[in-house]
């Protein structure tokens, strides 16, 4: 860790003007600073800014302050009742200690866990564009399979963001000059292209101030299904966030997103369209799953993720549409 200036902001305006690296929970940033993957000259601590730590009603939805901790958000009774998918996704990630510190805004902005990004002896375009990508030809079990570029194969590690994507949340951003804008969460993340160092569309001085959840999907069935190499405290191999609205056997709406498979929470509109209006069946799910994984894996070590995603997708939809024997499964239903 290199010496840095520390500035404690008391208002979002101060923070925006300070032109430094924003720190909130620091659960990822401090690790990155210790190993000198990022070397900010100034840290702007936003944790003392008032008004960013609340969850408040926002129409029929919720406005979640950027500083709300992962723990507080996951355990909020309104979230658990109306958006159980979000609660479950958060609890599927990290450890209790980390969730106590990690914030909503910070979770969205955490960096990839690609091991080559974390090892400064290895070239990495996400650290230094143009340097090369050591993951190409390297050890790649955790890499992405969709949406990568020749310059970067890294996957986004967040679970929370995957649920927020399925739930069509919006991100509220305050620009340096104070104007607020709201964008769908999918639009927060950039495709890596030849600038994988830029994970998001945020410009200098932009601060995420809140995440807006739209009205709950009343009566929907929701599951966050994460598969990982051990039962807890591990990043996902693949995950499926699903909220399904049904009438009888028919899938009316399917809200889906996939984690650990792309540089951002992955969505595939064609998949949802193939499901909607159809009666749930194994044949349908198998067809749709094949469409979902039609792209080849860009690294031999992640070829398994296509199979695993396919199977996890089918298993999740079977559970939600009650094709599966329900014993041992765990489905949440939103409450009116």
């Amino acid at each position, binding site marked *: 860790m290199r010496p840095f200036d520390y500035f404690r902001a008391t208002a979002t305006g101060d923070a925006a003007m300070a032109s430094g690296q924003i720190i909130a929970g620091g659960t990822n940033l401090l690790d990155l600073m210790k190993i000198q993957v990022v070397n900010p000259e100034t840290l702007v601590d936003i944790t003392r800014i008032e008004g960013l730590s609340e969850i408040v009603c926002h129409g029929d939805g919720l406005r979640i302050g950027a500083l709300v901790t992962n723990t507080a958000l996951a355990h909020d009774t309104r979230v658990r009742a109306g958006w159980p998918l979000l609660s479950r996704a958060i609890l599927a990630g990290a450890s209790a200690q980390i969730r106590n510190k990690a914030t909503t805004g910070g979770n969205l902005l955490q960096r990839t866990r690609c091991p080559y990004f974390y090892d400064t002896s290895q070239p990495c375009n996400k650290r230094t564009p143009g340097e090369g990508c050591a993951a190409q030809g390297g*050890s790649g079990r955790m890499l992405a399979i969709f949406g990568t570029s020749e310059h970067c194969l890294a996957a986004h590690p967040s679970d929370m963001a995957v649920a927020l994507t399925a739930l069509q949340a919006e991100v509220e951003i305050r620009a340096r000059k104070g104007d607020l804008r709201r964008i769908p969460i999918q639009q927060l993340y950039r495709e890596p292209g030849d600038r994988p160092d830029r994970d998001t569309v945020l410009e200098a001085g932009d601060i995420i101030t809140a995440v807006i959840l739209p009205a709950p999907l009343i009566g929907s069935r929701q599951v966050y299904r994460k598969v990982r190499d051990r*039962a807890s*405290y591990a990043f996902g191999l693949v995950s499926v966030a699903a909220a399904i609205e049904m009438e009888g056997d028919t899938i009316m709406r399917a809200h889906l997103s996939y984690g650990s498979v792309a540089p951002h929470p992955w969505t595939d509109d064609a998949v949802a369209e193939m499901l909607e209006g159809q009666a749930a069946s194994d044949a349908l799910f198998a067809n749709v799953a094949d469409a979902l994984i039609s792209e080849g894996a860009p690294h031999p070590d992640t070829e398994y993720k296509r*199979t*695993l995603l396919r*199977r*996890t997708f089918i298993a999740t939809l079977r559970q939600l549409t009650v094709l599966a024997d329900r014993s041992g499964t765990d489905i949440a239903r939103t409450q009116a």
Partner: protein
Amino acid sequence: MTDTFTMDSPQPRLLDQTGQGVVGTPMNRPDGPHKVSGRASYTADTVMDNVLHGVLVRATIARGKITGIDRDSIRSIQGVIDVITDQRMIRNPAQGMAGEAPVQPGDAVYYHGQPIALVVAETFEGARDAAQRLNIRYETEKAYVTPEGTPDREVADPETAGDFDAAWKAAEVRVDQKYTTPSHAAAAMEPHAAIADWKDGSVTLRSSLQMIRFNKKELADTLGIEPAQVRILAPFVGGGFGSKLGLGPEAAAAAIASQKLGRPVRVVMTRQTVFDCVLRRSETAQRVRIGATQDGRITAISHDDTVSNLDGEGFSEPVSQASQFLYGADGLSFTQTVARIAATPAGSVRAPGEAVGMLGFESAMDELADSLGIDPVELRLRNLPDTHPMDGREFSVRGLADCLREGAEQFGWAQRGTAGTRREGDWLIGMGMASAARSSMLVKSAARVRLTGDRAVVETDMTDIGTGTYAILAQIAAEMLGLSPDNVEVRLGNSDLPGASGSGGSFGANSAGSATFLAARKIRARLAEQLGCSEDDLTLQGGRARGGNREMALTDLARDEMQAEATIESGMTAKSHFSSGFGAHFAEVAVNEWTGEVRVRRMLGVMSMGRILNEKTARSQALGGMIWGIGAALTEDMQSDRRDGHVVTRDLANYHVPSHADVPGDMQVLFLEERDDWANPIQTKGIGELGISGAGAAVLNAIAHATGKRIYDFPALPDRVIAAMEAAL
């Protein structure tokens, strides 16, 4: 006073006669409250005035030479004192019990991650910053970094008994399978650390080390000084698992820097450095062949393996160690190949050999049972040899059959049913079992016991690496001297004290425990003499001595300090009798038929491991071993880059040891009552490593039973389970 007792014949079971009643009890660790309240001082906790901080710099090429170190690149960093390079620095930790310096590479680089310099600064942060920014110039050489790719292979002569080839040819049923296991990290909680303070021509080293008697010689040899000029302190060690057996590069570097700079120097490895340069367990490629008659008599056993290590390292993972004595056959053959690669060197990691060898061997046994249509427990029971199949030694005492029977009974093995038939929702349920075996050793060890009144002190340079040494040595001394264990103080981890075996190979309790026992026995003899009775007639209990119609309080009998030192070493009994812990592991797993996730639902380990000195710490060790077994079977997978050999999984978020959620609530350990008269005078066997030996195989065999399909490349990660399930019959 320091005459050596040699274990040449069985000794009376004195600990069963003494009557104080503390040996074997589940006594709490006396050091426990210190540890949980932060008062136990681990190496890096030690506060010293004027201390400097050193951070190791790692090589970032796989092989070659350092041609220049650009000291200017860090000159601007505040507080940087020096960049230490020295011909005496060591390439990697010493192998266990080496007692001499490891390779001192000079400017040669042997693997990516090798410590090549120490940056010393006034602060840890400054030193780490400088270590990361220091520019090093190299001349690179061709490096072979994978066991498959290297042309440099050493094939050992086969170890054989009988005629394997003939027996294999004649076998009516054969299993011939290949297995692979990846490298493992010891993953001790406490990172490797050292503080060296060089004063007046001698050095005091505080370091997290398992074997001080050997480490002292290793440091002296490294520095080119006499062992008498070295003092080592390691009162608390935060886990070792083999990775702290030998002196490490951080200790050598700290000592060299302290000598040069005239101030104490503290070097604490970052977690990434621990992965880079602390000895790993080798990956293995195994071939197991077992032949049998139709009625289930094993006739041929072969277990060949390929492991890797860096040039110049004498250690090779003894993969087939347990395969050589668990079951009998007409012909047995074991051949090891060592592939020399430019990568983090390999050494002892928790149960070297058995921990991975038994994954393959006991999986093959399970497959043989399937092929024969014989229950796996029954197959093992039918094939227990009368004597050690390789050298004909008698078994000292072998409780394997009882463990197998008792385990099957307790676990409900009879309800196991046909493979691939039990399910709960999406989860396939299966049961598996495996034998456990880990040979037991006695290593030269000394201890001193001092008695004043009703208070005793035990002194030895033995270590407690979290295993319970403080507890068991207090219990042995208390038992022998008729004292409450609260009245016994145990002093460990100081090289000024009598030299012990150290903690390794599960021989610490056998060895240091026996030395403590013998020293206390000498004091008993003196107490008997003072009381005027024979030793046999003496009873020491509750702080009082009785014998020859006299009774006295120890406070009166031992007013002046009585002191005795004893040394034990292995003798004739080890030549005539083979001592090993035995056991049987049982596991029930659930396998998700869609995602390939495996959850262990319950586990039982039944173990016969000689006299249990402390029921609580023994159980903790056995449970810990079984959890490591889950890790080997399901999660632990150290990955290296196939181009330059560097370790890719360099932290505990990417190297997965079992978390709480991976360990079932229902984990049972049962100890069978046993005394090993041929092992040592306290009739114990090694405990620590038996728990892991075979445990992973029970989990893997349960997966095979749940799914009806077998996996041959471990750990059984979800994608591998899926691939097995999707494979055609």
